């Protein structure tokens, strides 16, 4: 123990970088509670950031209307991949019937692996952790995902299918 200086006279750097190994590792109750309080501040900052993002989301620019396929281009139970609303945001279009189409974000809501369409079970499946989503409305059927797949809203204009927006639940 350093006995040459009284505790009140010891500068902070001498306490933090003591020449005695045991003193350097010693964490006072005050230091630990300070660390925990700063962690609490970080958690609060995280919540505040989510609040700001949710307020800004309402003011975001409307999503583009993008032609993604022609009617009849893909067979029933066929799929087509496309990017919407921005390049790099991969989505999947599935033809469910003669006139029924559904499109979803291809990013699994668990850990963002790419989902694929399983024709045998007519489900969207994530191969990473075996998450299954309904192809009819994107809801979670099994596995670790907790949120449904975001659906791409579709509109038919003549012979073309357009992607016109995103929704967090329900088929487009």
């Amino acid at each position, binding site marked *: 123990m350093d006995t040459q200086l*009284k*505790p*009140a006279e010891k500068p902070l750097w001498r306490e933090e970088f003591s020449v005695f190994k045991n003193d350097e590792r010693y964490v*006072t*109750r*005050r230091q*630990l*509670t*300070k660390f*925990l*309080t700063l*962690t*609490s*501040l970080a*958690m*609060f900052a*995280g*919540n*505040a950031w*989510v*609040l700001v*993002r*949710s307020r800004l*989301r*309402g003011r975001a620019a409307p999503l583009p209307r993008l032609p993604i396929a022609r009617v009849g281009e893909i067979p029933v139970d066929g799929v087509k991949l496309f990017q919407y609303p921005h390049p790099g945001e991969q989505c999947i279009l599935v033809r469910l019937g003669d006139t029924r189409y559904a499109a979803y974000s291809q990013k699994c*809501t668990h850990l963002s692996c790419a989902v694929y369409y399983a024709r045998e079970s007519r489900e969207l499946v994530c191969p990473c952790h075996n998450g299954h989503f309904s192809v009819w409305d994107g809801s979670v059927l099994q596995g670790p995902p*907790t*949120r*449904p797949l975001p659906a791409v809203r579709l509109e038919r204009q003549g012979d073309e299918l357009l992607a016109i927006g995103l*929704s*967090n*639940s329900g088929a487009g």
Partner: protein
Amino acid sequence: MALIVILLIVQIWLLSATLDAYLSGHDDVVLPGAIVSGLLFAACAGLYSFVHRIESDAIKNRDSG
């Protein structure tokens, strides 16, 4: 100390639940979550200040005694 840890655990859970709800499109829980998180942080800060005062008094008494 244990109380601060408990408050922190609740705050961590609150952050993960709020984020999950926000990503699902349920914005109605975000504001209450932020308010409660702020209150929890205020409680942690109050407890820290209490511990700080107790320790300062103890050090002062030790040095003068």
